[in-house]
């Protein structure tokens, strides 16, 4: 049960995988969200001033431009560009590490479901969705569009991309940032198995460019729990040197290091005003999205207050 939306029905990723059709998957997830009946907060807000109009009774008092009043002694309401249109850009990490999965759904597939669900949600609002797929390079880029065909494109792009090891995240994020012409709502779906500084450098660049950034980090339950017993040989997916070890002696240090890394990442994201959500591939998708949405709603409120 979600802490935020107790009435939400959960859709198991392995069940959704059986649906086959990604659009159907996305619709199932999103319609499940709509049952909870809440407004999607995935709307951009921007401080980009568009123009004034004369104040009409009923306009929010906070939207009155007081400087203009000081000069003209007349009331005028400010209007912003984000309230008129909205671009959501989804960035999917398709590197080799995302191909790991202890169950039927690996991280990449889970990321695909998430991306499709987010795209469906945004497209339903008649906003636009763009897509980038990257590993060691940006493998594919699709500018924002407002048709449902985007979801099929997600499927196609991920299918043709062969997972290769990546070295850093920052460079790819920098490249993607250059591709985005206007300020967008950026959703990064990646396991973020890289250096935290490197990751934050990329994310900060996006923030600096004025984008709203949401980070969703899907991990595998085995990566979180490390349930191995006995002697194991670990073959690195990102090209690392294999390691043979006694897992009983390894477990505590692994979990400690992982937790430290996650805490560091989380706190740095919060510090940079980046929404950060860590999940695992057995977690129902609607639950994840619900939490992201709720978090976004909370952040939107606080951000407006901060701006004002």
């Amino acid at each position: 049960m979600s802490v935020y939306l107790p009435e939400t029905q959960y859709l198991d990723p392995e069940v959704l995988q059986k649906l086959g059709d990604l659009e159907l998957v996305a619709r199932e997830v999103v319609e499940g969200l709509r049952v909870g009946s809440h407004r999607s907060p995935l709307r951009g807000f921007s401080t980009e001033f568009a123009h004034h109009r004369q104040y009409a009774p009923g306009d929010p008092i906070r939207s009155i431009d007081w400087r203009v009043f000081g000069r003209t002694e007349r009331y005028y309401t400010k209007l912003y560009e984000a309230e008129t249109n909205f671009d959501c850009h989804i960035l999917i990490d398709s590197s080799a590490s995302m191909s790991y999965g202890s169950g039927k759904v690996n991280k990449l597939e889970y990321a695909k479901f998430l991306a499709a669900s987010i795209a469906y949600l945004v497209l339903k609002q008649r906003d636009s969705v763009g897509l980038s797929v990257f590993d060691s390079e940006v493998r594919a880029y699709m500018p924002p569009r407002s048709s449902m065909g985007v979801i099929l494109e997600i499927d196609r792009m991920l299918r043709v991309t062969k997972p290769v090891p990546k070295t850093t995240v920052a460079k790819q994020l920098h490249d993607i940032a250059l591709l985005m012409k206007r300020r967008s709502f950026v959703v990064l779906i990646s396991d973020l198995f890289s250096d935290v500084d490197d990751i934050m450098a990329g994310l900060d660049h996006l923030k600096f460019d004025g984008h709203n950034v949401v980070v969703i980090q899907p991990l595998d339950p085995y990566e979180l729990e490390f349930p191995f017993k006995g002697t194991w040989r670990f073959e690195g997916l990102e090209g690392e040197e294999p390691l043979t070890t006694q897992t009983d002696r390894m477990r505590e240090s692994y979990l400690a290091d992982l937790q430290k890394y996650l805490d560091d990442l989380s706190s740095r994201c919060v510090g940079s005003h980046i929404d950060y959500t860590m999940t695992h591939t057995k977690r129902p998708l609607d639950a994840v999205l619900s939490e992201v949405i709720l978090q976004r709603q909370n952040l939107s409120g606080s951000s407006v207050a901060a701006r004002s």
Partner: protein
Amino acid sequence: MTFLNPLLLIAGLGIGLPILAHLFTRFQVQHTDWAAMQFLNRNVRVRSRQIKLRDLLLLILRCVALLLLVLALSRPAWTGDSWLPGERRAGVVIAIDSSFSMGHGGEGSTRFDEALKRVELISGKMVPGDPVTLVLLGDDHRVLLRNMAYDRERFAEALQSGKVSPESLDLGSVPKELAELVTDMEAPQKEIYLITDGQSRDWKQPSAQLREGLAALAAEAELFVVPVPGDPTNLAVTDLELVSGVLRKGTTARYRATVRNFGVAPVSNIMVQCRVDDAQIDSKVIPLIGAGASETVSLFVPFHNAGATRITAEVTGDMLPADNVRRTVAVVRDKVSLLCVDGSSGDAGRLVVAALLARADGAQSEDYVVRAVPWLSFPAEKLEEVDVIVFADVPEITEEQAAQLTRFVRKGGGLVWFAGDGVKVGAWNERASSGEGALLPARIGRVVDTSDALGAGKPLDPEMPDHHVCLPLLSLPEDLFNETRFLRQIEVEPRASSFSVLQLAGSGAPILLEQSLGRGHVFMFTTTAETAWNNMALTPVFPMVMQQIVTYLAGRKFEGPRTVGDSLTLTYVEQPDASDAVFDTPTGETITVPVREHQGQYVALLETAPEAGFYEARVSVQAAGIPIAVNVDPRESDVACLPESELRANLEGLGAKVTASDEELAAAIESTRTGRSAWRFFMIAGLAFLIFESLFADRLLRRGPSRQDNPATREPQNA
């Protein structure tokens, strides 16, 4: 090597196999792809070869520890030399001859005392905890300790209770007894010590069965025969019997005591003392008894009182007191009354009376009455006043008379029955010869002719059994003996309980049969008392036989002395009121036995008479006692021991070791005790391996990072 608990070994290996499988699979390396390599502590890297080597070492240590513990619990044992350390262990059976010959010797230096010294030597070489069995051998072997874990004090206590018994040694049953005892034991090595004086009568010519038994015993265990011989000198009173005289108050009976010199040198001036109810009444001196010879003396015993009289004949000054006394009981009567019931024309009665009165004085006395009455007068006679009834050619008796006679005999009366022309076979068979507890010893058949072609009758068979009635006939010259001829007799079908005393020569057809009935006896002649069918009455045979019969019946010779180990019986005339009878032993112990019905009679049976002396048998606790004399077996009095060399020769090839001296015994034990048990060694080694493996594994594990709180399974964390 053998295992004393082999099942535990199999079970232990069975348990070990799954453990081995588990340990084996544990040190196989598994593979997986992995994305989160950056979080794996490469300092904990173990090269696969190192893992294999370490795990292999731990696996070996655990397996070795398990194997050692299983081996320890299965109690490995072996004989012979071995590089493995082990304690010398053995299960020991010590069998001591406790027959009365072992009591031969002076105070504190009897053969049995020597045997106890050997036992001390043997027990001195035993290890506490080893199984030990201690048994006293005799006629009835007694186990003092059975498969006990050796403890010096308990063993000494049990040994102290061991005493010489008055029994003789039943050597034939010893191998079987010892085999059963040794089979019970579990030990790396088993040893049997048979300590005996090695009497010549037992060991000189061992039977094939004994040899086989000893060989089988030696195959199962180390068998040591430990002789404790002694001086062969021994005098014993081997017999005391009534020779002549009727056991009647006021008369004197002649007893004959036989003294034998079992030694190798002649003995002179042997005093034989006769006691009646512990009062010495006669004594005689035997001037000389040669080595291995016997001499007899006549002892005259006056009977002043009626009743059971205890008579003993004793020699003194001997190194084996147990056989110096011989005992007997005489039942003295106030008077003896004989009644002849004559069914003939009168001849039979006259001849019977004459035969019974044929004595030196040739006359009756008030204490010895012999009467003849016609058979039709029989019903008027008071049988309780009669001791012996003779039926001569009586045609028949009624049912009531048959019952009356049966009661008479059961109470202790004697009956003598003669055939004749007037005997009605059918009536006698129906009333006195049928069913259990029938009066006569045989069913009567037809009359047959026993004469030869010349018309002469057949004589008696000179081969006679050892019976009191036959004793005087043995001294009869052959020509006189053969004068008695039998022309006719009745054919008979003897009962299983009857005994043929006299037979016809050639055919072996019984002339005289005997059977016991209750406390009495019945003699049955298959011929006539008068001379119609034989000339017996005209020869010395008739009076001799008749008087012996009367002496036998009146003197209750059939209630003669018993031998130690025999059973003692008390026979009841009718079903007793009390359900138990009582036997008082010579040492004053009271043994109660139940009364049981057996073949139509009521009998109380004491299964074994354990001591020599006079027992008192009582029909109930309150009743007067009937004395029974019990003597030692005179065969055991031959205390001569087989020389050691002969003993060794006789036991050659059987696997038994003869150890004649303490030194030889000690050396034999030392050299043959090669059985070793190493369970302690394996147990300690197994535990040591376990401890070492635990420390080693713990040290290897300690090389990893220190333990911290494990946040493994938590819900995904949000910022």
